[in-house]
């Protein structure tokens, strides 16, 4: 049964310390969305988020929760958004699917490849709507780049370069301390390995620890890999080979810099932490270069530059506009909640796009190249890599099969 287009959608926001405030703003501005609840394991964040929603939606009923499972128990909630740290993304989403909720979840999709696989299966089993929060996807620039690349004006694309400057800071040598009384540290850690509380391991800098995330690389991979996967409809790589270093001036352990070479069918994808020395890349802290037999194109979030036959161009007007434009990333999600159509950054797409990031992290940590077998979804002859790609959960949390 499909719900009518003018029906209202009731949303709850889970994880509202950082990016969750973006969710509150985005969804708060959609007139057919009601926000029924916000949830955070930190009371400080929770109270601020309650205030934030009330400012946008004065006088509307709103509840605060510290345990996301109580949010999922509510029958009136249609969809949740998730902006927890990475190590919670999967379990929140699968629990939501199983509770009959649709999910708009922050990137990166998952903390491990095994989580990605579990997500895909659980969504399929429950037939829920999922959108990965890659909001850059909605923009005119990415749509136009897809049209230009697919038009063939660049010839056959043989190399894709992706980059994002900056790596993990060291974060110094802080000692563990008691968690603040407002924070449920045990719940914050959830399925991740347990550790004494250190403020730097928690809010806003958790990303610089393998226990919870994979550093800047894992954070930004999907925003910029998105345009390459979309334009070229890339499948999965056949190999990944990473190099780099970790910080030496603090407790953080994710890459201070990381470069990864990937082989795809007939194509190389090269991730670097430094800006590559290619036309149009200079000055762009994040970017993607398509290098083809007839020309090249550099794209970042909002801008692009094309090099063909010695000319530098902003657009190629002859290339027709064929791809329907997005109504907005969150709007698109809400419409799909109603129509039950696939979102613009749906789970199968997001999983495929995220997979090389997991291989890159694993190759970095093992300090060796990996050969990826697409048929068995395993690294060839590398038990340790396959184990690392499936880090088990900490009890009592369990990853649904």
């Amino acid at each position, binding site marked *: *049964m*499909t*719900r009518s287009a003018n029906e209202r959608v009731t949303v709850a926001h889970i994880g509202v310390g950082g990016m969750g405030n973006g969710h509150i703003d985005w969804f708060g501005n959609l007139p057919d969305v009601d926000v029924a609840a916000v949830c955070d394991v930190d009371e400080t964040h929770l109270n601020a988020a309650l205030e934030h929603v009330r400012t946008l939606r004065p006088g509307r009923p709103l509840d605060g929760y510290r345990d996301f499972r109580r949010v*999922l*128990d509510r*029958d*009136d909630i*249609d969809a949740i958004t998730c902006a927890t740290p990475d190590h919670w993304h999967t379990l929140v989403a699968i629990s939501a699917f*199983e*509770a*009959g*909720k649709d999910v708009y979840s922050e990137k990166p999709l998952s903390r491990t490849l095994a989580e990605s696989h579990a997500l895909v299966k659980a969504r399929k*089993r*429950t*037939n*829920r*709507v999922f959108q990965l929060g890659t909001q850059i996807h909605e923009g005119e620039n990415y749509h136009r780049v897809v049209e230009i690349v697919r038009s063939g004006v660049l010839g056959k694309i043989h190399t894709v370069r992706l980059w994002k400057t900056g790596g993990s800071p060291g974060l110094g*040598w*802080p*000692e563990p301390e008691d968690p603040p009384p407002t924070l449920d540290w045990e719940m914050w850690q959830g399925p991740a*390995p*347990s550790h004494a509380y*250190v403020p730097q391991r928690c809010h806003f800098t958790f990303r610089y620890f393998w226990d919870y995330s994979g550093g800047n690389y894992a954070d930004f991979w999907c925003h910029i890999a998105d345009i390459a996967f979309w334009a070229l409809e890339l499948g999965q790589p056949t190999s990944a080979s990473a190099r780099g*270093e*970790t910080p*030496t*001036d*603090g*407790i953080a*352990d994710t890459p201070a810099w990381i470069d990864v070479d990937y082989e795809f069918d007939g194509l190389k994808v090269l991730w670097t932490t430094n800006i590559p020395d290619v036309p149009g890349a200079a000055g762009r802290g994040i970017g993607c270069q398509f290098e083809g037999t007839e020309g090249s194109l550099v794209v970042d979030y909002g801008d692009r530059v094309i090099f063909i036959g010695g000319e530098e161009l902003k657009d190629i007007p002859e290339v027709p506009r064929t791809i329907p434009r997005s109504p907005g990333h969150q709007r698109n999600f809400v419409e799909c909640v109603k129509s*039950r159509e696939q979102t613009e950054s749906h789970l199968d797409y997001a999983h495929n796009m995220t997979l090389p990031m997991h291989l890159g992290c694993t190759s970095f*940590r*093992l*300090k*060796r190249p990996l050969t990826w077998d697409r048929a068995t979804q395993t690294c060839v002859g*590398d*038990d*340790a890599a396959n*184990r*690392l790609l*499936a*880090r*088990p*959960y*900490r*009890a*009592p*949390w*369990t*990853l*649904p*099969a």
Partner: protein
Amino acid sequence: MATLQIALALTGLVGASQPGETGWAPLFDGKDLSGWSCEGDPKGWTVEDGVLVTTGKIDGGWLKTDREYGNFVLRIEYMISGVGNSGIRIRSYRPDSVSPEVQILAPWTPTRDELHCTGSLYGHVAVSRRPDETPLAWHSMGIVCSGKDIRILVDGEVCTRANTDQVLTLKGLPPAGAIALQSSHSGPDEWVKFRRISIRDLDQDPVYVGQALRSSDAAARVSAQNRAAEIGAAMVPRLLALYDEATPQATRVARETLEWLVARASAREAARGAVEQALDAEVDGAYSGEARALAAGMLAFVGTDLSVAKLAGVLGDPVIRENALRSLISIGGPQACRALAESLGSLDDPGKLAVVVALGALRDPDTVDALTGEARDGAGPVRPAALRALGAIGDARAAETLVDASRSEDSDVRRAAIDGMLALAERQGDRGLSALLFRRASIPGATRGQRMRALAGARDLGDEKLVEDLEQAARTLDPGTLDRLPR
């Protein structure tokens, strides 16, 4: 500098070369030049009566080791002719970099000042105590390189000390390089002889590398981390000792280094086995619970059935349990599952809960009986966890236990049982049983989410009668269910 102290402790041995001493390797076997290569005329270097000889008649150029050395103690004996001139280059035999030479020179020229005499780092660092320069006699020399510190000893006495950070002309000195002997170059009739050349490569010494991991210099620390990873199993106890120092830097460095070590070993079967044994030995060894937990956790990379017994044996220890379970799940297989199932009888409730959850992740049908016991009688959260684990395994024998528990008065048990029934139904090859479980899961005590999941499952089965019945039930129990169902 603790690393220098260790290095210096070894200099007492300078000149007293004894074959077979631990940690020392001969660089010259007294027979031929294996392990060396020369850049000049090979005939310029000969071996006579166990002694390495080079004369000014044929220019043999620099004779350099095939291997590179960074931190080391070199012992060598030399004799020079009346106006002989030779030397030993260290850490650097590369044309494009700073290349300090420890001078060996007969006292024949007035320019032989302290910056250019025997024992000096020629032109870079002068001797602080002039050594015995008598030609035509054997002398022993020791060269100690430890991080930024270089010490030169002649005849057992320190003659030169250098801190490479404080010598401007040594800026850019590589951290490691070949060691090279200089041919005699002061005249056709002059010569130099070398014998008893041996080296202690400190970068392969677990004690030295263990100390270097504590360096305040980040580059030295990272270098030591890489050396430690190469050393492998012998570093495991030293890394746990470092971890037990319990400062933020010690735990960070120890943990990361152990991960590098284990990662490296995981690609090399012989090293993997040795590292697994070393970790296994420490799981119930002498270090703190936290360090033993670290060792247990690292078996996730390199553990096999050989580690299962040890890991299962520490499940009663709440400090180690989490990591032991993570490794047991990573190892997987029937032996790990059996050990986990057998451990249930001896564990307290938190231990049982964690093991039940692990069995749910491992999904071995042979553990259904053990889990069924906990799914019927488990205390507190153990029972719901066992019900969910049974569902995850997807074995038909668990159906009855799950259906029984779905009638429980306890809402946690009821909910877990229905979750288990749904998971079991979704994994069932037996369509009849799946249909039965989907029907049973759609009861008044179920949540809306559970009823929706049952309906989605029923649609997947393509059982129209079942779908119709479940939709009817949903309409009666909770009309909102149907509004929110996916197509």
